[in-house]
């Protein structure tokens, strides 16, 4: 278009002049502070944001049962002034003999999912008459506790990891126990593990008792120190962080993060044409790497 106008009206000097101006202009890189203020200024606007998600699952190559359970729910709460993105994403990796692992992870997903959606039922599917009495963290805490008590009662001896993320607006509230993980995957290549593994090896590493190398070869890597359904009381990690933007929220079981390295995961997510493909590629890659355990992965993204 510009060329077209230039042909119509422009002289030959004009582009040259512009070029000289650019060459003479002094530029300095923006400081972090400047960038932050620009970014935060942009975030402050009430833009329409849309939440999208996808999920991938596989039993893996070496297990007969699938003890992982998964729930994804992506929606919007319509409001008078704006539409608020709503998402609920849960991965649970069950453990224990026989089918009890499945029972535990399945129950955890259903009970947590049921409890949380019940709280938001009137906002999602009805006209709310009452404001929500519980805070988001209370909703998560009560739900995970109820699931814990159920598993203790109905599937004694078994247990499950649970990593649950409730997205409301631009915030993510996480409830977490065990060694499934939530990641913040940023478009610039940073990958942050948002959750902390409740495993013996991680604890020993945190205490400086094992080096990173020792930790990788630790014989009891799969020993958890906390799990839903285990122990009399459950202390889940519950916290709220901003949704990673621009980027992705990833939740997965150790069948994925234990097999693939972070660089590969990042590349597979960003190379894929869409979230569905990214999830499938991740699952296929974990299987190609031996698929020693059940694989579950959820990807969510805030667009707009």
């Amino acid at each position, binding site marked *: 278009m510009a060329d077209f106008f230039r042909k119509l009206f422009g002289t030959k000097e004009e582009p040259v002049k512009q070029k000289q101006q650019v060459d003479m202009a002094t530029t300095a890189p923006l400081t972090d502070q400047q960038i932050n203020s620009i970014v935060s200024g942009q975030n402050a606007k009430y833009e329409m944001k849309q939440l999208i998600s996808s999920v991938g699952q596989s039993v893996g190559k070496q297990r007969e049962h699938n003890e992982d359970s998964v729930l994804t729910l992506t929606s919007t709460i319509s*409001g008078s002034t*704006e539409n608020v993105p709503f998402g609920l994403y849960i991965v649970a990796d069950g453990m224990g003999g026989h089918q009890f692992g499945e029972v535990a992870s399945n129950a955890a997903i259903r009970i947590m999912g049921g409890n949380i959606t019940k709280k938001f039922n009137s906002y999602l599917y009805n006209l709310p008459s009452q404001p929500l009495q519980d805070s988001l963290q209370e909703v998560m805490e009560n739900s995970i506790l109820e699931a814990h008590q159920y598993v203790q009662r109905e599937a004694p*001896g078994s247990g499950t990891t649970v990593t649950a993320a409730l997205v409301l607006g*631009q915030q993510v509230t996480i409830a977490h126990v065990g060694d499934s993980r939530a990641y913040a995957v940023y478009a610039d290549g940073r990958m942050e593990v948002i959750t902390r593994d409740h495993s013996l090896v991680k604890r020993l590493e945190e205490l400086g008792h094992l080096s990173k190398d020792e930790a990788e070869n630790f014989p*009891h890597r799969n*020993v958890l120190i906390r799990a839903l359904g285990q122990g009399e009381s459950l202390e889940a990690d519950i916290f*709220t962080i*901003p949704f990673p933007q621009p980027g992705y929220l990833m939740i997965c079981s150790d069948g994925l993060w234990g097999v693939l390295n972070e660089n590969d995961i990042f590349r597979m997510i960003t190379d894929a044409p869409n979230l569905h493909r990214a999830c499938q590629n991740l699952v296929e890659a974990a299987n190609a790497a031996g698929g020693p355990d059940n694989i579950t992965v959820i990807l969510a993204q805030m667009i707009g």
Partner: protein
Amino acid sequence: MGTGSGDQRPRQQLQPGITLVNRYNIQDVIGVGGMGSVYRARDLHFPNVVKLVAVKEMINLAPDPLVRQTIVQNFEREANLLATLNHPAIPRIYDYFSQNEHSYLVLEYIHGKDLETVIADANGFLPEDQVVSWAIQLCDVLAYLHSHKPDPIIFRDMKPSNVMINHNGDVVLVDFGIAKAFQSGQKGTMIGTEGYSPPEQYRGEATQIADIYSLGAALHHAITRRDPRLEPPFSFAERPIRRINTNVSVEFEAVVNTALQYNPADRFQSAESMKDALMNVARKTGALSKITSAIPAVSTGVKPLWSFKCEDEIRGTPFLHQGMLYVGCYDNNLYALNAADGQFQWKYPSDGGIVSRPLVYENNVFFCSEDQRLHVVSTRTGKVVWTYFTEGKIYSSPRISDGHIFFGSEDQDLHAVNASSGRTIWKFSTDGPIYSTPLLANEMVYFGTEAGSVYALDFRGELKWRFQAKRSVTSSPINKGQAIYIASVDGTLYALDSKNGWAIWKFRLGKGSVSSPAIADDFVFIGAADGFIYCVDTRTAKEVWRFRTENQVSSSPTVYKDSVYCGSVDGFMYCLEYRTGRLRWKFESQAAITGSPVVFDDIVYFGSTDHHVYALFA
């Protein structure tokens, strides 16, 4: 405990009435272990007296015959070893035998309760003297085991459930680590929750000093009633004994802490030396002086740099601008003082008390008064430029953004006023008087009302959202990231999503709060009417620390460098290390401090209801 045992238990347990090897008549289950159950049984070889025995069962489910045989051999070897022991705190072994995959150990039956049950059943904390006396007995029996010839015996499983308190009130060690190997492989073995094992035991190093650690852990559990299996491993240091049970002596706490040192070399090197230390505790001779307990150095002799006396109470917060300190007073005046030496510059009389914090913008100082007006006064001359009337008293402090002044009034309106002309831009009517100071962020105005609402308006004065607390919200919000933090007289500190007003979390304070939160790193600080200054993690809503003052905290904390400063109605200004809540210094004024300090260039400025303005070194 292996995760499989849950469903095996009912199937495999021996039923009462069954007689083993024609001799031991099973009466009841008295315990469940990792590899099987423990039963109370009657020895039928003594038909004329009731001789009770404890029968300990080990179920060997190893599928590989060689492994199974090894387990049985280990079991028998250990049983033989125990048969050589002779100590009043160790049950005698009468017999052992194997049947198919089951092996049995027949032991002296102990009449009594295990220590875990004793702890759980106790009404409150166990007396220290009692726990110390058991601890000494346990050191005795450990010393006996550790000095066993030819090889020392490591108990490896010292925990309250393995310590019986017999009918005489003496301890007996039960459960001598039969076949207590790591159950590796299956996920969820959960061995880490044991809570009593020292770090080195996870590397397979079991030494006498490992038993010392476990004894320390058991004592910690007994004296604090905090079960270490419910806590992260090796986290005792995060639960200081005397913070949980204030009745415990410093000396006993020091002994337990020494036993619980992470590094084995830092613990007692023998059960005897631990016993000696405990004996000293028992005698209260104070011989433990070499084990230092960190008592923080607290400075109370803080002298003010200067002070300035007004004619009535100062309840509000000063404002510092270009070397001048502006502060409102209940003698109706706004004072301008030289911040360096407290020299009086000028004062300006309003017609009401001033609690509102002043604000300087373009050489004018803006502040509100109980005389229902926003006053604008020249910083140079102290003469009025213009005033702005509302329909009620004003306690809210003005805030400025983009040439607009925002504040609330008792007339229930949030006022937006042009900072140059004094003209109303808009007013927003709410459900109650506004004492809260508005927060201006993200081109939004956030504030609370005495009717218990938190409002979010955009800069055009349109409602974006409203949140309802249970009591009035006098506190002023602060924001970080996408959340705003605000307290209410309902006794809750709220984290609200700044975009839509959803409560992200709630933190329960002991009582209501009119204090406004401050933020540093991932911490939010707030005072409350229960007299505490709280530090709460902004991500998890977990309390990081709380600091007790002697009266209500209406003052709002201020963070400067690595300290938090806050006043209290007890008359003190406190300086606390903000990560730990440790007291650095406190300064006593002669009356309640309800306003907040302002800190600049390592100097803290604040007013007190004792009529003084103070300047102190931070």
